[in-house]
């Protein structure tokens, strides 16, 4: 048994030497005479003492020294709490729902609730309201920033979707692209040059919006790209992707997205010029019924217009 203790101390020292963690292989190299079984016992002891962390990476298991501060925090808790804490920690910054904690740890609901309250009071975890389902609370470690999918990112402030903000950004981006296209059209150069200069990269739009300063929150290029995508769905803008050298400003993975303002290809179609095209009771209307072309109020108003 003392041998195990000595080995434990040895391994712990190794861990201190390599703060990023050591693999089984490293321990074996350092202590080649140590049998595998004894090594396992030593590691297990260190784990149960809470002095080592067990992690897994692509090449195998990793043993890392536990942070001294967190180690001291967990001293007062028992194993169940440690388990719950582990589960929450694994969830990273997406957080985890209480029901999922229950599935993963197989503990009864009442226990879970007690433990969660306990951990919260110790300021080890916190509850964050999810923007997707407003009643749902997810738990995550206290010092972590919640992920974008939970808080909604730049478009949500306190769980509320900021539609006016989005609208304003939408209009500003469109105006920028439209004026760029007009300048290109008026320049009267060869058509290729005209078209190319009417394009703007997402980076340019992003810079323009940042300089405008209408946003209180910092917007990233992806945010601007989602706004530009809504403009595409409005039919006002089209997009192409070109290959760009790595390192040119604004390129992502060797590609750049270019946006350009466009005109609609047809005028509003003939059907909507008749009141029937917009009528809310179109399906109820037939000759001889209560709603019919002869007594249609909408038609009467439209004819007198």
């Amino acid at each position, binding site marked *: 048994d003392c041998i195990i203790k000595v080995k434990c101390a040895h391994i712990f020292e190794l861990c201190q030497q390599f703060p990023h963690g050591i693999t089984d292989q490293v321990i074996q190299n350092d202590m080649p005479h140590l049998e595998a079984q004894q090594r396992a016992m030593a590691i297990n002891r260190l784990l149960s003492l809470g002095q080592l962390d067990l992690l897994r990476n692509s090449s195998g298991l990793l043993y890392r020294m536990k942070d001294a501060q967190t180690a001291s925090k967990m001293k007062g808790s028992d194993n169940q709490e440690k388990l719950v804490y582990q589960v929450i920690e694994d969830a990273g910054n997406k957080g985890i729902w209480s029901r999922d904690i229950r599935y993963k740890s197989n503990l009864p609901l009442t226990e879970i609730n007690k433990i969660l309250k306990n951990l919260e009071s110790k300021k080890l975890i916190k509850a964050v309201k999810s923007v*997707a389902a407003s009643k749902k609370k997810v738990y995550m470690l206290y010092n972590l920033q919640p992920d974008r999918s939970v808080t909604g990112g730049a*478009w949500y402030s306190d769980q509320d*979707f900021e*539609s006016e903000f*989005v609208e304003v950004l*939408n209009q500003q981006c469109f105006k920028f692209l439209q004026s760029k296209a007009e300048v290109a*059209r008026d320049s009267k150069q*060869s*058509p*290729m040059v005209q*078209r190319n200069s009417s394009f703007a990269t997402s980076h340019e739009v992003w810079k323009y919006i940042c300089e405008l300063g209408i946003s209180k929150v910092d917007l990233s290029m992806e945010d601007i790209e*989602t*706004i530009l*995508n*809504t403009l*595409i*769905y*409005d*039919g006002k803008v*089209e997009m*192409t992707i070109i290959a760009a050298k790595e390192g040119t400003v604004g390129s992502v993975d060797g590609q750049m997205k270019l946006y350009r303002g*466009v*005109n*609609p*290809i*047809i005028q*509003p*179609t*003939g*059907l*909507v*010029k*008749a009141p*029937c*095209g*917009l009528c809310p009771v*179109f399906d109820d*209307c037939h*000759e001889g019924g209560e709603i*019919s*072309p*002869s007594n*249609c109020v909408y*038609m009467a108003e439209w*004819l*007198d217009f």
Partner: protein
Amino acid sequence: MRGNRRSLRHLSQNSTNSDVGPPTHQRVRSAGSPSCIIQTLWAKKPIKKMTAQEVRLCGLLLQEHFGEVVERIGTHLLRGGAQNLRTIANETNTPLDLVKKSLCVLVQHGVCDFGSGRRGPGSPVEYRGNCERVLRILRYPRYIYTAKTLYGDTGELIVEEVLQRGHMTMSNTVKTVADRLTHNMEEGRSMEYSEVVSSFSKLVETHFLQRCPPVAETATAAPSATPATHRTPASVTPPTAESNPDCYKLPPVTLTGRGKRRRSSDDGEEPGGVKKAKMDSESCGDEGIYWQVNFERFHQHFRDQAIISAVASKLDQTSSEIVRTMLRMSEVTTTPTAAYTQPLSANEIFRSLPPNYSISRPILDQYLSLLVDDPMEFVGKSGDSGGGMYVVNLHRALANLARATLESVVQERFGSRSARIFRLLLRKRHLEQKQVEDFAMIPAKEAKDMLYTLLSENLVQLQEIPKTPDHAPSRTFYLYTVNQLPTARLLLQHCYKTVANLIERRLFETKENKRLLEKSQRIEAILASLQASGAEPEQLTEVEEMITAPERQQLEALRHHINKLDSTENQVDETIFLLESYIISTKSK
């Protein structure tokens, strides 16, 4: 007001078929010959299913243009499929001779065709109505206007006459048009027949007019082309106009003369002269060669116009001119339902550009490559020989136009945010509720509301993908999707209903104010006769004052309403044309 109520009075025209009526049983043929099989197969041809809205619209159009009796017969034919004479007479409770006359009218205009019955050549002749042909009546103003823009007043009148009469000989058309043009000219001038003939021949050269298809005479000998052992018929349908090789050949007659001014005082004076005119027409030499309007050609022209204007708004004027040149070069080489035109080389396009568009060759190449790169894909590149071979993607262009129409309807009816969702679903095909909210950047509650509204109007469909075999709702994916073709069909039916509603409203307004209209017509007649007989101004003003001021206002308002309804009908017809072309083009792919 529309005065196109053609009742049965134009039956004095020669009709192309001489055997309308109860079948003569002299047409005895041996049972096994190919032509009788052809005839039987005609009777068994599947009929295009018609919707209630289409029948309603056809009924209204027939009534306006041909009168109640023809409307009754026509609607009965359209609803019931192929029927023989007795059935029609019995089921519509119309006397036999009226049925015969109505069928005459319908056949004259190509709405109805006939062929041997179901039980073989010995059974009574059956008549079948053609719904599409009736719906074309709605488009007559557009055809006439196009003829006017292309060939001037003469062309306009020629097309108008042929449309109104259905089938006409060339000599008859020329005379009538010359007379009409002379009537509108100043005193002492009249229209030369040769001018009208030249317009007529231009129309025929560009295929806007074509000869009527030869009637499938069952009394003629069996076509020697089909071998007796061959069962497969050469043509299951009645012969089309195009199957006649002389379809676009002018008859070898020369017409000389001038138009005659129709004077109201001349009516009773020269019965001899009228008779002489009749004898002239009979000796012109083109009896039996009847001409009709080639609707397909007009449709091709409209489609080309739509594509060119789309290119002009999306890109610029020069690109649209290039596309116009390409389409003009492919007019005669491309079939109407082709998905894309024949390939044209850049050299050819360069040579065929209109002379006032002097752009250099490299600039043309740039424009062509811009057209090819455009996401709308109006023009495609099919090869590199001759400086690059380019085609116009007709089907793709029609699909884009139809799609823009759908989006426009959604936008006008439900707002721009719903339109955003609609376009999003068109692009991304299948999306979940949450994804729709995220991509469109619309708050969840509003997005849900809009999606459900679109769903209830059937513009958006829901696709279920179950995760478990028991289709439990909590374990199923619900994806929203938009299918362009069914939605286009739905909107087309809406268009038909809208046009029918507009026509009914117009009839209603006219009926409401019938008394007033009759009064104003009487007053006008009195005024005209007074003016012709040289009355004094006081008498004229006295007559004019018989219509009071509020009545005048009411008349003005009525005129305004009727015009508005008329013009809106034409506008909805444009939508109908786009959607129909898209549906036909997709079906024939």
